[in-house]
């Protein structure tokens, strides 16, 4: 049988003083690590020696039982020892990845792919899963707080006449019941006056939908208002509020992992990508809500025209952002085109069936 022997030179530090001793080291068949220094010979059981994992070109270190240490440059010898003792298998693999540029570039490509997977699928799917299972009380608390803040900063009590509000509220309740197929316990319509915000409608996760007086005045007829409200109900039915919050957290996590090893400079460099990704998620939700509203409108035989007209009026009231990249809503032209092509592709009969099948 071939005799197994690994030999190398090292520096020996006894751990009691900072003195250095040059040493010749042998690892023998009998499972011992034998140390020859200028004045002593020591041996230690191999299985009690702990070899520090390899890292770049840093010197190798072996911890001896009793607190002493060997430090050596002879990477080959230590690797042979490691292999024999079956230590650091995982991290040796990691080091092999780090050693060759080909592997690292492969890792880079893999990383880009993984990040893309996360952002396109991983995060949205996970967020969706969590959001649909969250307790209603959580949504109610969140929504109550948001409404409080909005009331303090943007809103004042509505100036619409009570009769008008009641009329709209009834139509809204009918629509909500028709969509959810349940008696309306979840949805509530709130009217507000919002001079700072202008014509707008907001959906809160718990089912509270806020309608501003300005939007009511902007609309030509009730169908346009209902179209917008259907869009908002789409936000709630698809849990966009919660999903947005969770997806945001996921994106922040990814970006901070990517830049995590570096400290202060990373926070500055990380803001832009985070905002870009979050805006993209938000636009996706708007499109989803538009599609939802379109389905309902077609089902009612109204077609998507009311929603298209309302979008046009709203874009006239607020200036459209010049670039879509940073914006949370797709550009109005795109939304109108999307609605038109959706309507053309969908036969009313088909939509009816889809609508009744949903629970």
């Amino acid at each position: 049988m071939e005799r197994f022997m690994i030999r190398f030179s090292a520096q020996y530090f006894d751990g009691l003083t900072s003195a250095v001793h040059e040493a010749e080291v042998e690892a023998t068949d009998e499972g011992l690590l034998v140390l020859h220094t200028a004045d002593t010979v020591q041996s230690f059981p191999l299985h009690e020696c702990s070899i520090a994992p390899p890292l770049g070109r840093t010197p190798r270190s072996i911890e001896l039982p009793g607190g002493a240490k060997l430090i050596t440059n002879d990477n080959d010898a230590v690797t042979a020892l490691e292999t024999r003792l079956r230590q650091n298998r995982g991290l040796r693999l990691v080091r092999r990845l780090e050693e060759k540029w080909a592997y690292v570039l492969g890792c880079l490509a893999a990383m880009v792919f993984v990040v893309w997977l996360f952002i396109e699928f991983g995060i949205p799917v996970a967020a969706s899963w969590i959001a649909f299972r969250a307790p209603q009380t959580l949504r109610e608390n969140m929504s109550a707080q948001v409404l409080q803040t909005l009331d303090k900063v943007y809103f004042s009590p509505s100036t619409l006449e009570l009769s008008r509000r009641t009329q709209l509220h009834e139509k809204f309740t009918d629509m909500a019941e028709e969509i959810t197929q349940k008696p309306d316990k979840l949805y509530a319509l709130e009217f507000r006056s919002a001079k700072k915000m202008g014509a707008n409608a907001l959906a809160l996760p718990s089912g509270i939908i806020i309608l501003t007086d300005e939007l009511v005045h902007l609309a030509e007829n009730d169908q346009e208002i209902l179209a917008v409200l259907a869009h908002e109900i789409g936000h709630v039915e698809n849990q966009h509020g919660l999903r947005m919050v969770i997806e945001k957290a996921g994106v922040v996590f990814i970006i901070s992992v990517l830049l995590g090893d570096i400290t202060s400079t990373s926070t500055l460099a990380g803001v832009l990508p985070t905002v870009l990704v979050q805006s993209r998620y938000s636009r996706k939700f708007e499109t989803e809500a538009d599609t939802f509203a379109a389905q309902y409108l077609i089902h009612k035989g109204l077609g998507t025209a009311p929603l298209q007209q309302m979008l046009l009026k709203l874009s006239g009231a607020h200036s459209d952002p010049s670039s879509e990249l940073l914006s949370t809503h797709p550009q109005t032209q795109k939304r109108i085109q999307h609605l038109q092509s959706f309507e053309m592709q969908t036969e009313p009969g088909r939509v009816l069936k889809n609508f009744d099948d949903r629970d």
Partner: protein
Amino acid sequence: MDTPPWPPHQDSAASGDPAGSHPPQTPPPLTQGPGTPPEPVTYRLRFTGYGDEYFRIYFVNVLLTLITFGFYVPWARVRTRQYFYANTWLDGHPFEYLAKPRAILRGYLIVVAAALAHDLAGNYDPIYALVLTGVFFLIFPWIIYKTLRFKARYAAWRNIRFRFLGKLGGAYRVFFWLLLVMPFTLFLLVPYWSKKRMEYAFSNLALGDARPRFTGRTSFYYILTLKVALMMAAIISIPIFAVAATMYFTEGYKTHTPTSTILLNGTFILIMLGLYVLITSYTFARNMKYCLEHTKLGEIGFHCSIGVGKLIQIQLTNIFAIIFSFGLLAPWAKVRRARYILESVAIESPVDLETLAAVADSEVTPIGDAASEFLDLDFGF
């Protein structure tokens, strides 16, 4: 695999020692003839890390962290730390970071759970978030104490560990009571607090049996704060003036185009960034030099030749490199900065560095380290 140069040469030309030393093999005797004091020997720190080497380690870390949903983080952190420690050489011997990732994992999981609980509680009812934040402030000094102890104990040179001699009470005095009093003194005590912070760290960091002494004075910190405040006032008036001038010329933004808005906002951001880098680099450099040169470890003294100008230059070019390379150049940036900072440090010792002796220290739990990593606490080094 090619063998790296090891141990790296101590070139006496760079040591600056007038007596002209070479890597000492025989220590100057502690007791010499009457009238001949031992010659202090100067050693410079050397950093042998490379950007491209660290780049590979860094990106493999990131990939593995992503794939394992974050569980690889303790290993990634330990490898990163160990890379920077083991590439720092003093007198031909490297430093070592001895923490074991498995031990850190538990503390790390606790911190992640706590942070998640804080976020979720906040969404549920803000009062919970408030309570948790309050709890955090209460245990913050304990975390600092644990972190310093952990970082010291798991750092070693020539197999002699560092030790942190500070007491928990000291941490509470500086990081709780002093902070509590701060708003009532209109924040005038902030420079004093800075001095106390540095003192808590530097007067308590021992290497083996070499005991620390910190001789920094509060006056330095007041003067430093004053200088920084004056600098800020002088520089911040530029963007304010620029914004005022633009508003005047564009009649309050009425005649603005997308390009001009971007230019305006961009310039403003650049100036703010420049200011931020200037202030932080200036403070860091001055503070580091002062603290090191007013700390002694046994008989060992320190010199620091760090320059504000060079540090600012490095920091600014680093930031732009990172942004324009979409983060790919971040490892080079970190290595570059570390090299400059570490190699500005010199150690002066009248006794041979072989004569340090180890002192036993009690066990340390790594929760503090995980917390400090997660919250990115650092004493600026």
